[in-house]
């Protein structure tokens, strides 16, 4: 365990191990996500109440789930930064924040476009919608803060504090549909219960969710590798890697 922890502190070790996982994450992620999306768009049955507009669920739920999960991962990484001062945790937060922000934008956008034919409005200050908007502002705050300090350690600490404090918003998002029963429908998936949808609907949704998680894993590792290269550019191993012609290992998109 401690040896593992120690190794995680080594950027060179991380760079290599990430490169080994990335092709699998990218391949299976694309496969699952595309299978789920094609199945959901063309083959899943029509919803008896909402008609075909419900097909937006196959991207709305994955992006909304992931936007919250990424924030929670960033909060955990924030704790690790503050307690153990592990640099890779800060590298993760920096790499993940822009991806999380775009995912939140996607969740909000697809939700608004879905809301128009279903509720008759693009936007309402419903608790779920408002707390998701706050999540977007938290992401933007973290991105801004990460660039606000020239000193790397100060920036890492400030970003970690915001990531940890902001996590209070996550249970608010999760329970908003139960505490304030307004417009947004309750959760589609719960870990503790069987889904209320028919399998022809929830299986493709599950595939899309798993696929986007794997794709996020690929993007996070790729972006972390880039940040490691930038931070470690004065070290011998990065110089050798780049002198080797910026070789296939650097240019490869993980494939």
């Amino acid at each position: 365990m401690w040896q593992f922890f120690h190794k995680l502190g080594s950027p060179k070790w991380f760079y290599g191990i990430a490169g080994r996982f990335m092709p699998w994450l990218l391949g299976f992620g694309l496969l699952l996500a595309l299978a789920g999306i094609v199945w959901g768009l063309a083959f899943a049955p029509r919803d008896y109440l909402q008609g075909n507009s419900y097909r937006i669920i196959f991207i709305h739920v994955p992006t909304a789930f992931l936007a919250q999960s990424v924030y929670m991962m960033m909060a955990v990484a924030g704790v690790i930064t503050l307690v153990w001062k592990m640099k890779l945790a800060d590298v993760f937060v920096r790499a993940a924040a822009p991806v999380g922000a775009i995912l939140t934008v996607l969740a909000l956008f697809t939700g608004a476009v879905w809301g128009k034919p279903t509720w008759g409005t693009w936007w309402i200050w419903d608790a779920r919608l408002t707390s998701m908007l706050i999540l977007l502002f938290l992401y933007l705050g973290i991105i801004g803060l990460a660039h606000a300090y020239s000193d790397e350690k100060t920036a890492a600490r400030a970003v970690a504090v915001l990531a940890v404090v902001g996590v209070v918003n996550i249970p608010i998002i999760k329970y908003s549909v139960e505490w304030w029963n307004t417009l947004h429908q309750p959760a589609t998936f719960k870990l503790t219960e069987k889904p209320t949808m028919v399998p022809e609907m929830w299986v493709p949704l599950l595939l899309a969710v798993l696929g986007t998680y794997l794709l996020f894993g690929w993007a996070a590792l790729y972006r972390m590798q880039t940040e490691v290269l930038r931070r470690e550019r004065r070290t011998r191993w990065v110089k050798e890697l780049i002198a080797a012609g910026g070789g296939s290992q650097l240019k490869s998109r993980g494939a």
Partner: protein
Amino acid sequence: MAFDSFSAFVVMGGHGPYVWTCYGVFFLLVALIAWLSIRDRRQVVRSQQREQAMVSSGQADTARRARAGGGFQRIPTTQNESISKS
């Protein structure tokens, strides 16, 4: 297939514009993430390659000069003048 024809698939019972807008924006923004990430990586690698090329050519330069001039160079100063004036 949940639809009778391809046109029914595109129209989606009147919900086509909503559904296709969502999927379009989804793929656009996913592509944006990939593009930004790959661009960042290229920038880091290129700037390092440039720096390394400069360092190695700089080293070659100093080495050449050292071989040709023995490493010393005459630098004109104003010291002699000031002495003759005083």
